[in-house]
């Protein structure tokens, strides 16, 4: 690593010390305070700490923290990797993480989507993974089209390689300012923020791929390896030959979910789904050379298979082979409490985090048909507006025993009533455990509600 200026050295040392103090004082995990102090002493500290490292940034509305963890694991086959694994995804968090890690040849940083332009410049990142964009906390976040424009402007003219989701029209439009893109068929279950073309305002048309994907690789569903979308991975154009295996459909607008894998195009301009180099074929990731890599994740759901594909694609850019990296992904059991499984009072509890409509659709895909606790808050980090509950179709929960809790449980109650999903309201997590028979309990909660429940479970990681 190149020599840091004296000011940067001092700032780094203060940053590390403050983080340790913060942890020792029990005031936090030190993920932010150290960076904040360090940046006060040396505003260029993040740039100085980035010097000499090969850096990948991971951004998007959903899946950032998990994909960052998976990418860090994958890159680990090449050497030590610095990362902000605690989810502190703004420049103070990045600064803390790099200061704490010391010299490492690589860094993988989760970046809040609003901060991507700034962090791209500060870190001179070599690769940026763009996962997805959808509505999230509209009472303070930028609207989805504005967010895509912000990314597009930030990427214009920069020397950086992108690993981007070919299934999200907003991401594709943002990424298409450069031809330095590795496209991944990472899926898009939530379509309601991309019916209108971000480029021209025309209508986006989707054609669902008819290949039936198994629900969970661990559930023993039949594998579709060797069928279906493999042709796309071999680099063939998504033209007429692919359309033949698809069934045309016109999903209902406003119904939230659609097929996670659908070809799409603008009916008015040339924006369309690029041919992905990396695809998911049943329970395998298919690399650009057509190599199948069986996915063996502990993390549930189709969306995590997609996150794994993105992680492998980023790692491959740095020279890690998917065959070497895949076993590292299988070691990840939970991510800052997400997907964690805890035994308590004779119940096997699994924690799922879902912060916005797109995230809830994915959570319903991951959750097993077991008793389910839903918890909703609307504190600052969650966004103060609960209207989005009506963007989520809760009907996948029909037939399950549903408990509801959280600061805004009544909003959820009114929503479930209209959805004709019976539920029982509990005031506390302890009451929820008392109301659940021995066996499994799936917990789905938004951000602060999730943290509250995690705290009840001794801050499980």
């Amino acid at each position, binding site marked *: 690593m190149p020599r840091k200026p004296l000011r940067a050295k001092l700032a780094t040392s203060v940053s590390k010390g403050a983080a340790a103090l913060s942890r020792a004082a029990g005031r936090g995990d030190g993920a932010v305070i150290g960076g904040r102090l360090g940046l006060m002493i040396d505003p260029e500290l993040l740039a100085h700490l980035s010097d000499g490292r090969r850096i990948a940034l991971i951004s998007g509305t959903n899946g950032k923290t998990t994909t960052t963890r998976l990418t860090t694991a994958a890159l680990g086959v090449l050497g030590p990797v610095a990362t902000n694994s605690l989810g502190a995804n703004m420049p103070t968090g990045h600064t803390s993480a790099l200061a704490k890690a010391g010299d490492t040849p690589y860094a993988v940083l989760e970046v809040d989507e609003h901060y991507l332009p700034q962090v791209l410049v500060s870190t001179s990142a070599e690769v940026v993974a763009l996962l997805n964009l959808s*509505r999230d906390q*509209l*009472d*303070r976040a930028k*609207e989805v*089209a504005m967010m895509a424009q912000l990314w597009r402007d930030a990427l214009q003219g920069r020397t950086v390689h992108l690993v981007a989701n070919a299934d999200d029209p907003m991401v594709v439009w943002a990424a298409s300012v450069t031809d330095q893109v590795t496209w991944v068929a990472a899926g898009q279950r939530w379509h*309601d923020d991309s*019916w*209108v073309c971000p480029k021209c*305002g025309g*209508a986006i048309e989707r054609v669902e791929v008819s290949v039936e994907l198994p629900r969970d690789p661990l559930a023993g569903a039949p594998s579709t390896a060797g069928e279906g979308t493999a042709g796309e991975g071999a680099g063939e154009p998504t033209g007429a030959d692919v359309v033949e295996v698809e069934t045309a459909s016109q999903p*209902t*607008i*406003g119904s939230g979910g659609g097929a996670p894998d659908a070809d799409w195009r603008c009916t008015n301009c040339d924006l369309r789904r690029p041919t992905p180099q990396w695809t998911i074929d049943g329970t395998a990731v298919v690399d650009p050379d057509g190599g199948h890599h069986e996915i063996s994740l502990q993390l549930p759901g189709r969306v995590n298979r997609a996150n794994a594909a993105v992680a492998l694609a980023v790692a491959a850019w740095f020279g890690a082979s998917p065959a070497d990296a895949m076993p590292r992904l299988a070691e990840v059991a939970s991510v800052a409490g997400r997907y964690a499984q805890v035994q308590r009072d004779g119940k096997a509890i699994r924690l799922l985090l879902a912060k916005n409509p797109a995230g809830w659709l994915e959570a319903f895909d991951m959750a097993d048909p077991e008793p389910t606790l839903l918890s909703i808050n609307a504190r600052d980090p969650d966004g*103060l*507006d*609960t*209207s*989005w*509950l*009506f*963007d989520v179709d809760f009907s996948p929960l029909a037939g399950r025993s549903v408990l509801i809790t959280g600061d805004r449980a*009544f*909003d959820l*109650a*009114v*929503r479930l*009533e*209209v*959805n*004709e999903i019976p539920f029982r309201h509990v005031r506390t997590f302890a009451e929820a455990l008392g109301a659940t028979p021995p066996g499994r309990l799936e917990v789905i909660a938004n951000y602060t509600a999730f943290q509250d429940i995690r705290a009840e479970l001794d801050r499980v990681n």
Partner: protein
Amino acid sequence: MSTESALRIVWVYPDLLSTYGDRGNLLSLSRRADLRGLPVECCEVRSDQPVPVDADIYLLGGGEDGPQALAAERLTADGGLRRAVDRRAVVLAVCAGYQLLGESFFAKGQKCPGLGLLDLRSDRGPTRAVGELAGEVDPELGLPTLTGFENHGGRTHLGPGVRALAKVTAGIGNDGATEGAWSGSVLGTYSHGPALSRNPALADLLLRWATGLDALEPLDDVWASKLRGERLGTVRARESRTTG
């Protein structure tokens, strides 16, 4: 159940005007009609389809600037909504949908012509209005306190041809004093997204207007009542903290 007798609810342009839970109003209305044994037909009309003239209730949601301007253009060219209002169909319009029912509104820095179905004009306010909204509803409508969440940059000025929906007690609404507007069977509000889920009596008013029934069988609204109590309690607590 014959199509003739079904209550027809049209969600206008969900491809352009559906920002945040706007589907909720459609769901609330159809559920409340359903529970009264009123047959319902719901229909979503995209912006490239003609707006049917003969439905009973029309719903318009919120939207970003670009889609809002496009929706106004297409609705004006289509003419279906205007003809429906001429035959006294019921309209509930929220946020961007509310603004575009007026004479004019601002989108993308420009003054855009509205549909002229309500005597009001909207422009840009000095700040964005984001947060809980509450108000005492026009006594003529006989409804309890309005509660909702607003998120908009516009200010709306009412002309003599409309009445305010409510007097603001928390939040901004039209201009900090009044919120929403109504005239005949057309009603607009800044209470965005699923406004009817918090205001079941407003949902029932729209159903009564649409069916001509004087009264509807009461429903078990215990959860909606708890939600209303909680939200109105929150803004009252905030009010007394700032004034006391």
